[in-house]
């Protein structure tokens, strides 16, 4: 096909490597016509500098040879995802996603569907030629029943290969799209209607109104095995029976333009504001004996927050601190655990294999971890857990009624505060009580009403320990 100068297209198609004014399309192919309609519309609407066309994989892959606007090549089926990002990052852009029926209706259908459902600001031009052109005439999702292709040599059998996919009708189930129309480029009258549809889709982009979708019934003489005239006739006679032309939806008159971004603080200002609780930077202190602690129990007992509270106290003392939780299905399965390392130098392994201090709020974790405690270490176990007959060698075991006390005081979820008090009273963390308390207060900074309450609970636990230990 030779081309006279068309607006919106390069005068000579040098990007093909061979300066030429002929496109790479076969005679009678609909792609060239659709390319031209798009090029003309973007110029007529004054959008050429703002237009970015995402080129597909399929026969349209070389669109950038021709369109004189911003061009981005996509992977097969992924143009909607790429267009999504472009329209969000360049709000002034008029984003066009140009795709064939394999690209859009098969490999990339979910990306198309989801982008439509999100109402992305782009015009999607969908070339339905009922076949895979680029790769040699294989069956497409849009191939008609009984139609012979290289991968349906006996004709598409819907019982094994499914039925033709009606993309416009599927997308019409979604709320977000602003405009959906099916047109054809099989004859002049139809091309005039296609031209109007392209304009409408681009006006919607110009006005920032949202998602527009135009399907083109388009002849592919080469792979349909027909000459140009017969291919066009096939489109009009056979394809239009399956794919009726017409506007499926147009709410462009009422759709609202998208709102501009609200002003926002800089990242520096944002973090400055959001951080009320300031801890000093860590300092090396060779005299500090590294403490390795493990907190265990059931999910919901506040095990992880107890560990964080101790870690925060350590930070107040400029210690190098790590906190590492159990996570994933283990956590959902009911058990919770975390490890805390407090050190006077950068911490190596954050995992605690042999704790100096082990806190157990339930029986399974007591039985599982008590024997890992280092000689000279301490186990604080809730009094609801029966103690093992033989205590681990060289390890002090303290039975503490944390759950019971917190129940009696009417705050059953605060057993972890009782355990914190035990840690402070036993002086096993190497941290000062005032810092443990400060960290406890800080952990409730979003619920200030609980600060006093937890202080009270803390003191009750200390009183219990003074009396009973």
């Amino acid at each position, binding site marked *: 096909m030779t081309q006279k100068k068309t607006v919106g297209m390069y005068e000579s198609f040098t990007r*093909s*490597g061979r300066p030429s004014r002929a496109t790479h399309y076969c005679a009678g192919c609909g792609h060239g016509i659709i390319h031209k309609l798009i090029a003309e519309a973007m110029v007529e609407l004054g959008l050429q*500098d703002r*237009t*970015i066309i*995402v080129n597909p994989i399929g026969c349209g*892959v*070389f669109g*950038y040879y021709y369109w004189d*606007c*911003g*061009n*981005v*090549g*996509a*992977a097969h089926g*992924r143009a909607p*995802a*790429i*267009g*999504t*990002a*472009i329209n*969000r*990052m*360049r709000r*002034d*852009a*008029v984003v066009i996603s140009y795709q064939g029926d394999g690209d859009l209706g098969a490999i990339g259908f*979910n*990306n198309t569907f*989801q982008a439509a459902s999100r109402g992305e600001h782009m015009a999607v031009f969908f070339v339905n030629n009922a076949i895979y052109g680029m790769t040699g005439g294989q069956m497409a999702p849009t191939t008609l029943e009984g139609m012979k292709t290289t991968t349906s040599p006996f004709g598409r059998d819907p019982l094994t290969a499914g039925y033709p996919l009606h993309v416009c009708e599927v997308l019409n189930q979604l709320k977000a799209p602003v405009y959906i129309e099916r047109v054809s480029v099989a004859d002049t009258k139809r091309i005039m209607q296609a031209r109007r549809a392209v304009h409408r889709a681009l006006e919607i982009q110009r006005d920032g109104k949202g998602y527009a979708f135009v399907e083109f019934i388009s002849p592919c003489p080469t792979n349909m095995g027909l000459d140009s005239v017969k291919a066009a006739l096939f489109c009009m006679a056979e394809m239009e029976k399956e794919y009726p032309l017409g506007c499926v939806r147009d709410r462009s008159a009422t759709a609202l333009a998208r709102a501009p*971004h609200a002003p*926002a*603080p800089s*990242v*520096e200002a*944002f*973090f*400055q504001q959001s*951080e009320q609780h*300031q*801890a000093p*930077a860590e300092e090396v202190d060779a005299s500090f004996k590294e403490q390795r602690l493990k907190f265990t129990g059931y999910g919901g007992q506040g095990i992880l927050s107890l560990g964080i509270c101790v*870690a*925060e106290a350590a*930070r107040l003392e400029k210690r*190098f601190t*790590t*906190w*590492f939780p159990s*996570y*994933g*299905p283990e956590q959902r399965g009911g058990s919770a655990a975390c490890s805390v390392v407090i050190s006077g130098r*950068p911490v*190596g*392994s*954050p*995992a605690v*294999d042999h704790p100096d201090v082990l806190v157990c709020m339930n029986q399974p974790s007591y039985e599982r971890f008590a024997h890992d405690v280092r000689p000279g270490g301490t186990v604080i176990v809730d009094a609801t857990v029966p103690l093992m007959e033989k205590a681990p060698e060289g390890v002090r075991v303290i039975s503490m009624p944390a759950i019971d006390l917190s129940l009696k005081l009417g705050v059953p979820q605060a057993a972890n505060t009782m355990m914190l008090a035990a840690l402070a009273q036993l002086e096993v963390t190497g941290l000062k009580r005032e810092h443990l308390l400060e960290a406890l207060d800080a952990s409730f900074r979003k619920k200030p009403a609980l600060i006093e309450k937890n202080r009270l609970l803390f003191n009750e636990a200390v009183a219990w320990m003074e009396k009973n230990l």
Partner: protein
Amino acid sequence: MTKFVKGNEAVVIGALYAGCDVYFGYPITPASEIAHAAARWLPSVGREFLQAECETASIYMVYGTAAAGRLSMTATSGPGMSLMQEGLSYMAGAELPGVIVNIMRAGPGLGNVYPEQGDYNQSVKGGGHGNYRCVVLAPASVQEMCDLTIRAFELALKYRTPAIVLADGLLGQMMETVLLPERALPKPDTSSWAVQATPETRKNLITSIFINAAGQEAHNRRLQTKYESMRVDAQHDNYLCEDAELVLVAYGISSRIARTAAEALREEGVKAGVFRPLSLSPFPAEALCRTLSGRKALVVELSSGQFRDDVLLHLAKEGQRYQPVGLCNRMGGMVMSVDEVVEAARRELGLGK
């Protein structure tokens, strides 16, 4: 100013200071906290967050952002990373910058959500089709989760190529203190190559297709030259290596365990040190050779020996005569204890228990 955060959250802090305009991602354990933090923080500072419909979409949204001359990132774990490989290849081919964080979990297949380093080859050797490789950085602390994310953005832009931050479930989930950067990086000027919907950038073209073979070969040679030139940005860290008789070679979380093991070995009178690459691609090969020369080496990794094989390859390519390099590894979400590394080290040195 400091903050006590999870490694996964530190990644987002880094991204914000690096100027990341938008985050795209699909949930997966143990990386999801990255998306959670991004969903809270990016819109708070006027940037965008979008939950993609799948990881394939995520990576092409990263591609699209870069094509438009802006900065974005995504984060995922094993299965999602596998889905992104085609997109990474396209980004490398089209020379587009973007940051991908892989919080590695155990595989193959669904595996489990516990820490592993089994995606080493996938990340470091390309992973998708064609001749390319990404920048790959390997943080070993929550601070580095922030700092190396920033670095990843810088290198992605400098070389116009995707950069991967390769961490694991343990680094992602653990909390440590992060010192926040003083100020954010300046906005990059991408107008010479990106498609920005402006008159000046109208002729710019983003594509990875060179339809004639000679052109595609020339493109490949250019890419290879670029990857070679990345050598200058290789980064490593030596810990107690000067007088070491045995060097533990490890990256990421394994290097933390190696570090404690080296200290424990020294307490027993064994002079051990740790060589740790911070960048796996470009790899600090010369530094590795210098450090290992004349010393015994033991690789500590949470994978099958993928990293050890690469250490051997780098030594060989640098012309170092073959030397045995031991392996202490765990897989499947099991993390080696310090004791295990100490024992392996003693075995390597021919010392009894």
